């Protein structure tokens, strides 16, 4: 088990390094890096001074080694806009996103399992049709549009909820709902599908021949087996939640890592962009390892 985690961690580090290298070389290969690193309105002198300072006149592989050396010594650069450590800024924003993502995902998973498994017990029934349509709509809806329509209805027209910011519980309602909608929609589809196939699996026939109660068959045998694929998908969706967070945080002015990244991109604050990548990537790799471990707990056939 430990050796497995070690192996996974080393794969993850290689992946993060690959990602950073990708970003690093992309930025250097597409022209003058100082235009990326510095604000668009900076002067020519400032650019030249910047280039000299950061060694852009050196060969590219040398630059990359320098960059890695800085990484190892935990130097992630300074934000050119805020004049403080870029990593500090990223780590400040990260918990905000984490809270939002956790609430949204917990809600999406819980509702999806309930709705999906009830729908699967009576396929084609009224509840199933409603759940299918709602979940497909949730999976198909552009989240930025849902957010805008939400603001239009609940903030502009009826003045029930705040348009942006954090603070009260009311500030949470729309961001959480918009963020949870797509994972919820996709997960319901998965739960319903795996439940349907689990319910027609041979071991369910055995359970029926054994004379188990319907409740025991559905929740004891079928749901337990259909949880396995659900966990995989839920893990991928949680990682993908960062996508939604960028949109939601931008629209609702939530001070999380998604908004930070967009802002940094627009302001050309490159060190911050790279720090947010590093933080997000690390979080996702930790998440993936947790998913794998959970999988091993739930499926006795898997041993690492």
């Amino acid at each position, binding site marked *: 088990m430990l050796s497995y985690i070690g192996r996974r961690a080393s794969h993850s580090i290689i992946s993060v390094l690959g990602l950073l290298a990708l970003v690093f070389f992309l930025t250097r290969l597409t022209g003058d890096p100082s235009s990326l690193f510095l604000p668009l309105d900076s002067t020519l002198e400032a650019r030249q001074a910047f280039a000299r300072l950061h060694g852009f006149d050196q060969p590219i592989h040398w630059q990359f080694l320098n960059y890695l050396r800085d990484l190892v010594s935990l130097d992630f650069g300074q934000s050119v806009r805020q004049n403080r450590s870029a990593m500090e800024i990223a780590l400040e924003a990260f918990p905000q996103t984490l809270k939002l993502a956790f609430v949204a995902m917990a809600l999406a998973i819980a509702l999806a399992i309930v709705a999906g498994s009830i729908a699967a017990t009576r396929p084609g029934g009224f509840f199933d049709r409603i759940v299918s349509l709602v979940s497909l709509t949730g999976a198909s809806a552009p989240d930025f549009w849902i957010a805008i329509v939400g603001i239009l209805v609940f903030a502009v027209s009826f003045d029930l909820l705040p348009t942006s910011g954090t603070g009260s519980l009311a500030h949470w309602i729309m961001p959480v709902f918009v963020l949870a909608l797509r994972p919820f929609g996709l997960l319901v589809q998965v739960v319903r599908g795996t439940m349907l196939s689990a319910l027609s699996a*041979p*071991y369910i026939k055995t359970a029926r*021949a054994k*004379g*188990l109660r319907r409740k*025991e068959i559905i929740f*004891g045998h079928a749901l337990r087996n259909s949880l396995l694929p659900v966990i995989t998908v839920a893990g991928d969706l949680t990682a993908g939640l960062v996508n939604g967070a960028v949109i939601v945080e931008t629209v609702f002015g939530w001070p999380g890592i998604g908004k930070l990244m967009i802002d940094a991109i627009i302001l050309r604050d490159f060190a911050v962009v790279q720090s947010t990548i590093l933080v997000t990537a690390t979080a996702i790799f930790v998440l993936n390892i947790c998913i794998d471990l959970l999988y091993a707990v739930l499926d006795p056939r898997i041993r690492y």
Partner: protein
Amino acid sequence: MSPTSKSTSPLLTVENLTVDFLSDESPVRAVNAVSFDVSRGETLVILGESGSGKSVSTSAVMDLIDQPPGDIVSGRISFDGAPIGNLRGEPRRLINGQKIAMIFQDPLAYLNPVYTVGRQIVEIFACHGVASGKEARERSIELLRRVGIPEPDTRIDQYPHQFSGGQRQRVMIAMAIALKPDLLIADEPTTALDVSVQAQILDLLRDLQNETGMALILITHDLEVAASMADRVIVMNRGEIVEAGVARDVFTSPRHAYTKKLISALPHGDTAEGGNRRSTIPSGETVLKVENLTKEYLFSQGLFGKKQSFRAVNDVNFEIRKGETLGIVGESGSGKSSVARMLLRLTEPTAGRAIFAGEDIFSMNQARLLAFRRKVQMVFQDPYGSMNPRMSVHAIISEPWAIHGDILPQARWKDRVVELLELVGLNPEHVDRYPHQFSGGQRQRIAIARALASEPDLIICDEAVSALDVSIQAQIIDLLADLRTRLGLSYIFITHDLPIVRHFADRIVVMKQGEIVEDGSTSAIFANPVHPYTQSLLEATPVPKWMAVRAPRPTGRARDALTL
């Protein structure tokens, strides 16, 4: 086990049962007006080939048919005098698991993979309110011990995938007999198992029946299993009962044409040396000579664990002459298929030589290998799997010519495909059809036609008839024998079923755990098996029940004298 006493009424009666499966527009009839009954202590065998509807009627008894798409059109099912056909919910639970229990063909799929076997047995005691907690666990361990699982008190906490195929079926049986049901339904319980394991499972079922006096309904496609277990038999074909009666009468003097066909096709049916399909040509020149063939697999345990080796094939030697058929017989894991794959260079051997036309197969370069692959062809077990489902029959048969450009000019392909189809007994008008439009036997004929297309000297048949129904097996063997005589082919015929090669192979090699334990001429092997393993293979073939009563443990040779 004595046949039912006439005084008691039957335990289970099924009358006039008709079941449809609904599909687009018109329903498909799965069973039509089926009636049967079974009494305590009796074994009823429902015999039929795949698609005969033999499982549907017992599924109806257990209320396992989903409606829709299933649709029970008519029929009365009564158990112990009371109708049970329409029972659902709680009343149904008083029957299922308690009065009637069922075991299935593929225990790995029919056991829940994420729960320990212990939990799955305890569950039965718990949900029927018989026992719980420690007592249920104790009783489960006892059950596992009874069905012959070694060290039951530790293995109870293991998961289904940690058991072997035969043990899993034992676990299923333990679950089924937990509450001492009056009726046990066994749906193809031994089909996926090796013959020797099959015999053990059948023995276990027989013993349990003796102990508890339960009724047993055994569903099978295997005539020998049927004969060895049945007091009474019903034979099903296309959803209807074509023949029913006391086992001995049905097997020894079948009345219905379908039953006659089934029984005559049985390769073990006639044991007279005269009726054989062996080669008539006396030994010709050597086609292939295999020397010291060995295949070793290395696997490591853990990240830095030390390498372990496993010999799938160990020092195998044999040779085959022109016009001859060599049978390689062994159970799963014997290495027989590894031999075939190595001879075709689908896997590389660890050591050894195979001399074909004066040249070692294993040291050929790409060009020589290509030429060799023209001369040696293979016919696989599953004719559907061995053909690309998206290629038409024409494309399948002409593929060797597309690969080896020098065999036949493209202009002649069409005519030659027609010739080959006629040669293997297929309608040449079907050249544009796809594999799924043919039956299993027809597909195997296409596979043979494809093998013949490159005009080979040697054809390796790997379990070539094992996936086919018995009546079709004989036809394919006849075809192969006929082609051998006409085209002067040699065969290596690999099978797990010793009796099937009896009338076909000239010589037999018996393999066990990667080694050859016995070889010799077919008649010698059957008449006088020397190695204990060969003897056990011959014995493992089930013995008809009405004979077993008189001679409980016939030896291999004694069995030989019996006629079915």
